């Protein structure tokens, strides 16, 4: 029963996805998606996903647009935004509306990220 928690990481940079798998693979089941729409497909077929980390700036739908759709279908999943900019109004609204738990500015510290996820899963 001691199954690993499942994470979904969404980023258009495959490099970032690889880094997630390498750094978090030992601790979590890491599922990756290269766009928002792929992320939604993954959420639909993988009900075990508890945490979603998504990049903000992506071709097609951006991180917040993706979360808005995903949150309405999977209200119990926890979402985090990773952004190359500092905070924007869109992110600030998402925080206020409790769409996302927290946002991380790039370059972020993987250790910090891990600590926050562990805290949220308690």
């Amino acid at each position, binding site marked *: 029963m001691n199954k690993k928690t499942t994470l979904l990481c969404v980023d258009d940079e495959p490099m970032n996805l690889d880094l997630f798998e390498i750094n978090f693979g030992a601790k979590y089941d890491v599922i990756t998606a290269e766009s928002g729409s792929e992320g939604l497909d993954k959420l639909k077929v993988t009900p075990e996903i508890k945490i979603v980390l998504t990049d903000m700036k992506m071709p097609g739908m951006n991180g917040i647009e993706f979360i808005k759709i995903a949150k309405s279908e999977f209200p119990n999943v926890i979402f985090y935004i990773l952004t190359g900019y500092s905070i924007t109004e869109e992110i600030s609204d998402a925080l206020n509306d409790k769409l996302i738990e927290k946002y991380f500015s*790039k370059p972020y510290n993987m250790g910090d990220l891990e600590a926050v996820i562990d805290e949220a899963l308690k």
Partner: protein
Amino acid sequence: MCDEKNILLVEDEIAIAQNQKVLLGKYGFNVIVAKTEEEAVQAVEGTRKINLILMNVALSNGMDGILTAKTILEKFDIPLIFISARPDANILEKTERLTSYGYIDKNSGETALVAAIKMALRLFESKMKKLETLSLRESAYENSMVPIVVIDCKAYAIIDCNKAAVKIYGYAAKDEITGRTPAELSPPFQYDGTSSSEKIKYYVEKALSEEQIIFEWLYQRPNGSLWDAEVQLKSFIDKGNQLAQFTLADISDRKKTELSLYDSESRIKSFSNNFTSGMIYQIVMKPDGARKFTYLSDSVQLLYGVSPEEAIADETLIYGRIYKDDIPGLTRAEEEAVKTFSTFKVEARVKDPVGKIRWSSFVSTPRLLNDGSICFDGIEFVITERKNTEEALLESETKYRNVVENSIVGVYIIQSGLFRYVNKQFCKMFGYTYDEIINKLGPMDITYPDDRTVVNGNIMRRINGEVEFMEYEFRAVRKDNRVISVRVLGSYMVHQGNPAITGTITDITEQKQAEEGLKKSEALLRTLIDILPDLVWLKDSDGVYLKCNQRFGEMFGAKENMIVGKTDYDFVDREKADFFREKDRAAATAGGPTINEEEVTFKDGHNEILETIKTPIYAADGKLIGVLGISRDITERKKTEEKLRENQRFLTTLIGNFPGMVYRCQNNEEWTMDFVSEGSIAVTGYSPEQLMNSKVISYGNLVYPEDRQMVWNVVQSGILNARPFRMEYRIIDALGKEKWVWEQGCGVRQDSGELLWLEGFISDITERKHAEEALKESEELFKNILDYAPYSIILTDMDYRYKLANKAFYSLNNLSEAETIGKTTEELGFVVEPEISKFLATQMDENGKIENLEMPLVDKNGRKIVFLYSSLVIQWKNQPMILISNVDITEKKMIESELEKYRDRLELLVKERTEELAAANEELQTINEELMEQREELRTTLDKLKAAQKRVVQSEKMASLGIFAAGIAHEINNPLNFINGGVYGLERYFRENLSGHIDNVALLIKAINVGVKRAAEIVASLSNYSGRYDLPPTNCNIRSIIDNCLVILDDQLKNRISVKKNYTDIPAALIGNERKFHQAFYNILSNAEQSIAGKGEIDIDAKVIDKELIITIKDSGCGISPENLPKIFDPFFTTKDPGKGTGLGLSITYNIIEEYKGTLEYETKLNKGTKAIIKLPINNSGKQ
């Protein structure tokens, strides 16, 4: 008392009869024997009372005992026992039908017989007692003064009622009412519009479910008159039938009182609303001197600019407006008036809502209230207008006469046996016309024959002077032969030199009838009275209670059985009991009902005002049984009456205080007056009596004939538009003098909209009119004089705006009055040279006048004119004005100058030439100077442009840097993230798999992490250009922001640099982003600190000049070299060592200050120090 009972024995056998007589005699019975039916009947009818009959059934002489018994019992109620030797069923049945006292066998023996007799006597006695009670109750019900009606709840029909009910319904006999429904005795509809028959059903149904209800009902008597009843309805069941009992009380009077209260209130209201040139008020002064308004008419809004409610809540809103110097006069007048309770009148100045002083007249009458307070009913009149023209108008008499004569009393004068004068009511009372009586009828003609002797005697005694005054009653006969009872109050008088008698006469027929009815009624109220809302009781002539109802018991807090047998002295204090006893005696001696009112405290502590009717009750033999009392709670009615009286007093005082006449009249061409106040004497010379009902003259006749149509039209238009009418017109007064009056009034309508009458007041304004007319005439004269002057005369205000001009002015200048008035000379198209205007103004200022000044000007057509101008400051209508006269001397001047021209021509030509040359020279010089000036100006402009361009370039640089920074931030952050993630992964890998080597790579990993961190910081500070971290602007405390920066820099400053702060008195708040301000000041202060190598100082100064906050930060540092100064705001320009500064600080600071519309400047001297000057506009939140 002889207790022997008489027994009639009907027995034809003598022996048996004798035997029985002896036998019964032993038991104390006296036996009378009858042998035949005749004897038996004789004995019963005889003087001796027969207590019992023993009847033999079978009599041998052929007579039938049963038949005999029947004959007797049909006439008499006597107990009867049959005796028979052979009782059989047949006989038993026959006798049982006749008597219930029994049947005895002849042979049953002595004991049985005596027992049967005793039993029968007892039975009869108790039956008699019961009968007595029954008839008593019936009598109580029948004779009760309270009208009671019983109806059948199924048919809603009346099945019974008492005498009082028949009377109150206005019928003669009970059978006229029974069988009808209460709705049939009522008008078809009740006040609320519901049909009477539906509504009575509703109430009866309600009474069935609620047992007892009380409601008000409108009834109609057969003569058509309506009356209001308070009905108490209680349902009960009698012999299986559902019945209801109505107890009625006539409350018409109460209703009338309520209606007249309403009428009185609405009159005050209508009166107040009519009265807009003043204010009606009522103020109460407590014994401690505190004042409070209790009433103010709506016009207080107009006169004081506050609503009645506001002024009632705070009287200083009114008192505070009275002119300070006039308050002692007002107070003195009030105090005087209170001493004698007389009306006072004071004139005082009051500040009106726009701050102007007006004159007001306060007229008021004090009266004392129950609690010792003094109430002033008063009126404030605005009299400013009157003051200005003439002295106050004549004051009217203050007393308001009781205008309504008690017209229900007839008045007469008799002389020489004939009536010489009677009033209307007298005629009405006897059904004659005035002419039919006067000098034709004598007192005997209207007197009932039986009473003529008495009446004649009384008249003679008065004529002979035996008595001066007398009062008596007699029966009189009307023209239609109906007999009425009247009461006369008469006295002796001299009429036209001869003795006569005069008096008043009142119709007391109804009163008499009522008294008759009362005399007849001999009642002990009981059965039905317990449920009455009234207190009912009966006392014997010694004041001992015989009966009382439940409600009466409540007063003493005791049940009936506790009260009966006792007197008032057992329940209330001696004084009160004496009072009751006194009233009881008075009622007994009066012989009829007496009414008194008293306030009574009930046992439970509440008070009621009771109206008590006490009626002596007599037994059939005329002996006084006692006094019957019925009390009704009239507390509410009393309150209403009190309120009505209060209102009437108020109105009375108001009307009396009017200087002028208050009226109520009909809307006809005579303006027939229903009511006129005493003020009519002052206004018209006629008294109210003469004017009312057009007795001597109609008001319409007083109106000046030529004004009558106008008056009629104004009034009708006012009525039509439901607005008050106001007008001024002339009347001819009693002395034939023409007078001007001012009238204001309005139509008073019923709720249904029908016009009832007109109300208003009329005051004398003759004096004012005369003054006005005189003024008008004098103005006319003045205007004529002006208009016939051949030259222009103008009147202007002090700004030279035309107010008036004469005919000559208009015709000479071809102008109309309309285009002239209000304009100045210049606005009319005349051109006056400025020097001349200036000269005129100076002259006027110094001397107040100008005489015969030659003034050239140009008119609107460009024609040059010369006027001989004179002006003078005068006072006109209390205003300083300038009177100007202009005589046109253009022609004269032209001729003069023509001559001069010829003379001076040669000289002039030479002069002109010289002047022309000089002018040309001068012109050249001027042009030269102008060119020089322009060159200088161009140079300045060029410098300004250069500075502006520099600023534009700088801000352009900043803006593009912002966009650039934002763009690259993301692109750099992403690869930085790869590095971070990668290093993190590597570190983990080493830790997990190559832990032996971890120490070897630790420094390498640290180097990568530091590199990434520094790169990320540069990117982050760049993003400050992008304005991405905008937060909503707030109030920022600049002082605490600077303080805060100094705290952060404290480590670098302490023990090295002294900071002088001189910015404590600047306004702290600026609107903006606190983080940005913080960053800007931090950068400047940080640069200052870094510029100082060893010890030094920083001075911070701040001041406000022209809505600009100017902060200077001066350091004693190394300064900036002249070649570096222009570059200090460029991004990435720095003189610091690598890693110590990005070169972005001042660039960002510059950007922030510019964003808030401020400026940042640096003044510097190498090795001496640098001064940063920051200017920020106050109240400017910068870009939003």
